[in-house]
């Protein structure tokens, strides 16, 4: 067991898979010699060499297209898109190419690749370098979408993504890179499509993803300490595949549902889950499901403004308290 940052866990996860499988290659902008702009890939170039760890030009379409071509012919590429906002400039691959090639070819083509990308707010980078784009990816049939919240999950879910035969969008949260966590020694391989109940509770279910997970946990502790409200916190971890059973099971025990989403309001992942719960567990609910999200606005740059719009432990706790006590 060692304490590792989320950032170092990325490098360890990639190294684990590259050491295991010579068909795993890794490329992106500034990822090799510089070790990544977030320093999440330091040491990989030195360990695996320039043939397997490559710096690319600023060509997001070429990065993802090349990853796809390599994947469909037998490699297991990991491609980095530096900021998740930039998937908008190569969205053709994410929306049209990766996820549809297997279906359109009646199963002839495969696309086993991982796109790692820095997602989310908190760095005061403004509206084009801070977004949470998980919903852009979640809506596309054929993709898998994963977003870890701890160093251990980074390694385990990254390994599972690399070994997965389908295209996976792997969203690393920029504001979690410095976060530390206990990580077991040796190989770690997790399972996609499994949510984690990270705090059991009986009064309400809180679903969260990535940076919202520690905030939801803090909110749960606050609700317990200040109001005696006992919340169950679930780290969703994987939007596709979605572990609906864990969520429905929890709602069946707590009878209330809250989602905590960093994304802007419209079409957030929480809306999909709320609709599933409404369809399949409506009579388990003792009150309305509530979504706690960033408002439907572009993100501001100023720290004081950005802090006002992302869900905070205080806002999460207050929303839940008011809803439960109304």
């Amino acid at each position, binding site marked *: 067991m060692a304490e590792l940052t989320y950032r170092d866990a990325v490098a360890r996860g990639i190294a684990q898979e590259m050491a295991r499988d010579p068909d795993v290659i890794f490329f992106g902008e500034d990822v090799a010699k510089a070790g990544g702009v977030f320093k999440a890939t330091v040491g990989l170039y030195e360990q695996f060499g320039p043939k397997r760890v490559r710096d690319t030009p600023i060509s997001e379409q*070429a990065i993802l297209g090349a*990853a796809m071509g390599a994947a469909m012919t037998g490699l297991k590429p990991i491609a980095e898109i530096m900021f998740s906002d930039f998937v908008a400039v190569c969205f053709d691959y994410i929306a049209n190419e990766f996820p549809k090639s297997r279906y359109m*070819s009646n199963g002839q083509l495969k696309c086993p690749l991982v796109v790692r990308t820095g997602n989310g707010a908190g760095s005061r980078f403004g509206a084009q370098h801070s977004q949470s784009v998980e919903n852009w990816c979640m809506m596309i049939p054929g993709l898998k979408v994963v977003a870890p919240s701890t160093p251990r999950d980074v390694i385990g879910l990254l390994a599972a993504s690399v070994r997965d035969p389908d295209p996976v969008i792997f969203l690393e949260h920029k504001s979690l890179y410095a976060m530390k966590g206990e990580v077991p020694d040796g190989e770690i391989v997790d399972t996609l499509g499994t949510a984690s109940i990270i705090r059991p509770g009986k009064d309400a279910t809180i679903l969260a993803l990535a940076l919202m997970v520690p905030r939801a946990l803090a909110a749960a502790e606050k609700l317990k300490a200040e109001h005696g409200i006992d919340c169950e916190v679930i780290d969703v971890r994987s939007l596709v595949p979605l572990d609906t059973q864990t969520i429905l099971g929890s709602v069946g025990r707590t009878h209330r549902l809250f989602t905590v989403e960093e994304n802007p309001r419209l079409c957030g992942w929480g809306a999909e889950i709320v609709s599933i719960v409404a369809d399949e567990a409506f009579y388990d609910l003792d009150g309305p499901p509530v979504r706690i999200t960033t408002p439907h606005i572009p993100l501001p740059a100023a720290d004081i403004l950005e802090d006002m719009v992302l869900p905070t432990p205080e806002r999460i706790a207050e929303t839940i308290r008011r809803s439960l006590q109304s």
Partner: protein
Amino acid sequence: MPKTPGLAQAVVTPVVNDDIGEQLRLKLYHSQMLIREAEQRAFDLFLQNLVKGTSHLSLGQEAIAAGFAEAMRPGDLSFCTYRGHAHTLARGVSVEKVLGELMQRDNGLMRGKGGSMHLTSTEHGVMGSYAIIGAHLPIACGAALRAQYKGHSDVSVCFFGDGTTNIGAFHEALNFAAIWKLPVVFVCENNLYMEYTPIGEVTAVEHPAADRASAYGLDRIIIDGNDADIVYRTASAAYARARAGHGPSLIECMTYRHSGHSRADPAKYRPEGELERWKQHDPVVIYRERLKQFGISEAAIAKIDEDVRREVDEATEACKKAPMPPADILFTDVYADGGWAWRN
């Protein structure tokens, strides 16, 4: 008479020599005739409402598909656009599989799940037909990266139209291929029209592909794309260069689309006489004459024509009899487990 862009350059006739040989010439002719007849049949079936959706024909552009495919080795990979029937047939995929897909039947290449614009046959090295302009150039780079990484000798060959040269992915892919010296050959089929618009009206240079080559340290290569011998020789040289580790090539093939952009397009925007002039430079007619020049008998040529027509007729009848795709394939192959489940 209005100037026909490209034609003057295209009709510079090659020195005729016999480096290609009779056996290969017969194959090149057969391939072009097969594409000609199959594409014409696709058009006829469209008029009968038996070809559904859209279709983009390569009538008039057969020599490019035939020449590049015949110069390939098994294992070389083709990446096509939505105008990809010709390249798919040229790699040896049966007419029935192609027409079946166009007719959206269960006997189609992808059982109707892909359609005319996405013909794919991995067993023939046809790694997909891509309907988003430019998307497949980076994908071909990735396949070439795999070949380079694994030490394989296959070449990735990427076909696209003149219109593709104005999209970003074209430039990203060329730079990528050049900096990593990837074994990929980019083939621009310059048929003078970007869909409905003359390419010259929307492009900063006269030759949309070749005039950009120097920006990526590549040779400026323009050939007569209607002469299968020239195409074959150019392809062979580019493949040899790629296999030798000398990196990518960009080849602009001058040609002309006898039909409109897609089935919906009667091509009324073409200046009067242009089509007729290009029909004087029809690749199939050129090649028939070429065969005769090399002493191949009219009877031997007629035999190929007859075989091809029979094959296309038989394929047509088989497709007409083929069932429609069953509903149970709707939910297969979204994910690698064979299904479509996104939740438990």
